[in-house]
C-alpha cells in the first residue's frame, strides 16, 4: 500500500495534496497494470509483476495466513522443531539432487562413482557429508519434534490426523535412511541391506513377499539397487513432500497447541483460589488459550492496556500478558510514525525495494 502511495507521489511533480486523494490504489493498479509505462523500470517493474501475480494467486493472503497466524501464549523454542525437521528435509532434497548428478545407480559402477564424487569432484565430499549427516540429524529432529507434540498433548482432538500423518512421515523418513544406505554399494551398505531385507522377510505371512518386492526377486540382484534408488530418489520423497504439505495445512488450519502449563483464563468474578490447581503457580493461571483459535479470540478481544484497565487489573495479572500487550501498544505508533516519515521524503528506487 505505502509503496503504491509513494509511487503516485513520485509521478506528480508538484508533490502537493493530491497524494491524499490517491491513497487507495485503483483496480487497475491492484491488477498490476501500469498507467504510464515510461516511468516503470527497475524494481518498480518487479513490484508490478509481483502485484500482477499476487492478484491472481493471492500469494500474500496465503503467506499471511502461514506466517502471521496467531500462536498461543507460551509458545517457545520447542515449537521450532517441526520447522527444523522441515529444513533438513529440504536440505536433503537439494543436496540429494546434486549428488545424483555424479552418482551411477549400477551395481558395477555405483561404488566407483561415489569414490569419484568424494575424492575428485570439487566440494563433493562436503555435499555428500551434508547429505550423510543430514540424514542422521533429520531422524534426531523428527523424534524430538514427535516428543514435543507428545509431551505437549498436541496429538489430542482435533489434531489426531496430524499425529497420524506424522507417524507416516516418521516411517517414510526411516525408509529413506534404509534405501539411501545401500546406494554407496560398499561392503557395509551391501550387508546392511541384506540384513534389513532378511529382517523384512522374517515378518509373518507378508514378510517373504515384501522382501521379494524390495529385492525385486528372491535374492539381492542388480535390480535391487535400481529399485532402492528409485524409491530413495522419487517415490518416497514425493510422498513425503505431499504429506508434509498436508501436515502444514493442518497446522495452519487448526493452529498450534498451547503448552500444557498454560491454562484457560479464570472466569470473571471467580475468586483466585477457585481456579488454582495443585502444583501450578497462580500467576500462570491467568493466561490463556487452549488452542490457536482461542488464542486469537483472546488477543483480539483484549483492548490495549490503558490506565483504567491497569488499575482494574489484579496484582497477579501484572505478568507476561501485560508485558506483551504493552509492548505492542508502544510499538504500533512508532511503526506508524516511521511510515509517515517515509512518505514525507521523496523515495529512491533503493528504498522502494527495501
Amino acid at each position: 500500500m505505502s509503496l503504491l502511495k509513494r509511487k503516485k507521489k513520485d509521478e506528480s511533480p508538484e508533490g502537493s495534496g493530491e497524494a491524499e486523494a490517491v491513497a487507495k490504489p485503483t483496480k487497475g493498479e491492484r491488477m498490476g497494470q501500469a498507467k504510464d509505462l515510461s516511468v516503470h523500470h527497475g524494481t518498480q517493474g518487479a513490484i508490478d509483476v509481483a502485484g500482477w501475480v499476487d492478484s491472481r494467486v493471492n500469494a500474500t493472503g496465503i503467506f499471511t495466513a502461514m506466517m502471521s497466524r496467531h500462536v498461543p501464549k507460551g509458545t517457545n523454542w520447542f515449537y521450532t522443531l517441526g520447522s527444523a525437521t522441515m529444513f533438513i528435509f529440504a536440505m536433503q532434497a537439494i543436496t540429494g539432487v546434486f549428488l545424483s548428478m555424479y552418482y551411477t545407480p549400477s551395481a558395477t559402477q555405483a561404488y566407483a562413482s561415489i569414490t569419484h564424487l568424494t575424492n575428485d569432484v570439487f566440494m563433493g565430499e562436503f555435499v555428500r557429508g551434508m547429505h550423510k549427516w543430514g540424514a542422521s540429524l533429520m531422524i534426531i529432529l523428527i523424534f524430538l519434534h514427535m516428543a514435543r507434540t507428545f509431551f505437549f498433548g498436541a496429538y489430542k482432538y482435533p489434531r489426531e490426523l496430524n499425529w497420524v500423518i506424522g507417524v507416516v512421515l516418521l516411517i517414510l523418513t526411516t525408509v529413506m535412511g534404509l534405501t539411501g544406505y545401500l546406494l554407496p554399494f560398499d561392503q557395509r551398505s551391501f550387508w546392511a541391506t541384506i540384513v534389513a531385507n532378511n529382517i523384512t522377510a522374517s515378518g509373518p505371512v507378508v514378510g517373504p513377499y515384501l522382501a521379494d518386492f524390495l529385492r525385486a526377486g528372491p535374492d539381492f540382484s542388480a535390480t535391487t539397487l535400481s529399485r532402492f534408488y528409485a524409491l530413495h530418489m522419487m517415490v518416497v520423497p514425493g510422498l513425503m513432500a505431499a504429506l508434509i504439505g498436508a501436515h502444514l495445512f493442518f497446522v495452519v488450519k487448526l493452529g498450534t497447541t498451547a503448552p500444557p502449563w498454560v491454562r484457560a483464563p479464570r472466569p470473571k468474578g471467580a475468586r483466585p483460589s477457585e481456579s488454582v490447581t495443585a502444583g501450578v503457580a497462580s500467576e500462570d493461571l491467568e493466561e490463556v488459550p487452549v488452542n490457536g483459535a482461542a488464542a486469537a479470540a483472546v488477543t483480539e478481544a483484549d483492548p490495549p492496556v490503558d490506565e483504567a484497565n491497569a488499575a482494574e487489573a489484579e496484582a497477579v495479572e501484572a505478568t507476561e500478558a501485560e508485558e506483551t500487550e504493552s509492548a505492542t501498544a508502544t510499538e504500533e505508533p512508532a511503526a506508524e510514525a516511521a511510515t509517515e516519515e517515509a512518505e514525507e521524503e521523496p523515495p529512491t528506487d533503493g528504498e522502494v525495494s527495501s
Partner: protein
Amino acid sequence: MSEPLNKNSEPGEEPRIKLPEAEPRGYFEGESMTRRHVFTVASQAIGGVAALAVVLPVVGFAVAPLFTRGEERWEAVGPVSDFNAETYKQVVFTEITGIGEAGKTTAYIRTGAEKFNEEPNDVIAISTRCAHLGCPVRFVQAAQNFICPCHGGVYDFEGKRLGGPPVRPLDRFQTRVRGGQVEVGPRFSVTNQLKAVRVRDPGEFTGGIWEFLYPPRPSTFPPPSN
C-alpha cells in the same frame, strides 16, 4: 387474454394452468436417476478407468518379480576328486549374475558319508548364509562346527542348528556331477530333519507350526526330491 399465460396460481389456489398428468403416473417424482446423476456417475467411472489404466500396469510392473523365477544356473566348482567325506572344502561361485563381486557366494562341499546315511557319490554343498539374518558362517575345523560371527549362531557338521538365534539348519545347494566336475545349482532350505524344502530367507522357520507364517514364494525353485 389480459392475464399472461405463464402466471400461475397463488399458493392455495387451484392452478390456473394445468400441467398434463404424468404418464405413467409418478414418472417425474419417482425417477430413480436424474440426468445430473447419470453424468456424475459416468464421469466418475471414466475417471476411474483412466486412473486404473495408469496404476494397474505400473503396479504390475513393480510387483512382477514376485512371480518371476530366474534362470536355473549351474556352475562347475572342481573335479570330484577334490572333495572327500571327512571334511569340507570351500568353494566360491557366482550365485547372482550382473552385480559383480557382490553376486558371489561361498559354499562348503564334501561327499556323502556313511555315518549320516548318505551315498558315497552324493555331493553335499552347504551354504554359508546364516539362517538367522544372513551373515557368512565359517567352518571351524577344531570344533567341527559352523560358527557365525554376527550373533553367535552355531551349527554342527551337517549344518543343523546347535545354538544361538538361528531358527533352522544352514541352507544347501543342489549338486550334480557332469564330466567328472562337481556342479552347484539352485539353493534350497532344509527342515531340522534335513528334508529339502523350498528356499526360505534367513530368519524363517522350516518346521513346526511357525512354518505356516512363511508361505512359499513363487519366485523360488521347487526343492530337489529326496
